[in-house]
């Protein structure tokens, strides 16, 4: 699929995929699988859910190749599909564990999502302690905050790109991102205080 001079664009691959060229679709999968997998992993904190969501995302893409508007860019489209699948599933999970969703944290503003962790306890041992604490803190965010943090910091999207993926105004992206980071700062700041004379110690 790679020409010597320039890389084939995603949009060109989509067009080839529409014509039934399986290799073109396989190339799209190759380009995006890690990104989509990591996006889903950060949304759930579970490898199992991440695999499943990533598979579903590509199946969805494949089924709707026809409806992709050629003048649109491909990456916001695939991110939109993946984030919608994640948010839908999180909503469903929330219904099933509503009674365990008691808010935690000093201000009671850090909702706990017990289901996220019970699905894959093994991951705690896969990551270093700090990474695990960070993932736990991200897990604890409400889904609409979590998704902006993941898109901004783990997928490196700009405010404008995030707004387009989620179909919300840029101002809303900013509000949610700032609020989310404030929650994370308070939570992680307690566990890992900054070295420059911040009072309090790691309480764990």
């Amino acid at each position: 699929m790679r020409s010597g001079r320039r890389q084939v664009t995603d949009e060109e691959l989509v067009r080839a995929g529409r014509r039934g060229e399986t290799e073109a679709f396989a190339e799209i999968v190759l380009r995006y699988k890690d990104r989509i997998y990591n996006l889903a992993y950060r949304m759930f904190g579970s490898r199992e859910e991440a695999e499943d969501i990533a598979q579903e995302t590509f199946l969805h893409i494949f089924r709707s190749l026809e409806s992709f508007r050629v003048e649109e860019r491909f990456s916001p489209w695939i991110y939109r599909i993946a984030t919608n699948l994640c948010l839908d599933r999180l909503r469903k999970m929330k219904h099933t564990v509503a009674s365990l969703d008691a808010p935690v944290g000093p201000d009671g503003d850090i909702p706990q999502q017990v289901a996220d962790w019970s699905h894959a306890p093994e991951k705690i041992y896969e990551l270093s302690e700090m990474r695990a604490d960070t993932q736990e803190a991200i897990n604890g965010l409400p889904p609409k905050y979590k998704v902006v943090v993941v898109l901004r910091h783990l997928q490196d999207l700009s405010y404008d790109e995030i707004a387009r993926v989620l179909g919300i105004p840029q101002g809303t992206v900013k509000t949610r991102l700032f609020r989310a980071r404030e929650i994370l700062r308070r939570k992680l700041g307690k566990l890992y205080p900054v070295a420059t004379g911040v009072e309090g110690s790691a309480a764990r």
Partner: protein
Amino acid sequence: MKCEEVYQWLQAYLDTEVTAEEERMVEKHIRGCVHCRRRLVELSQTINQIQKAGQLTPRQDFTKRLMERLEQEKRERG
């Protein structure tokens, strides 16, 4: 300029999503304000920590399994 007003610019500043003028405004404020300077350090540490969460890779047979499911769908559709 009050700290609370600066705060949102401080956040956008860390994302390099500010104009040159806003950048100057933030820098001027933090030079004179210990409180906001500390917030900036803490926030940037939080962001670093999020970004260090690391990248994982899906199972090795990810693409193979997916392509098999697609082939199956194609066959079912006829």
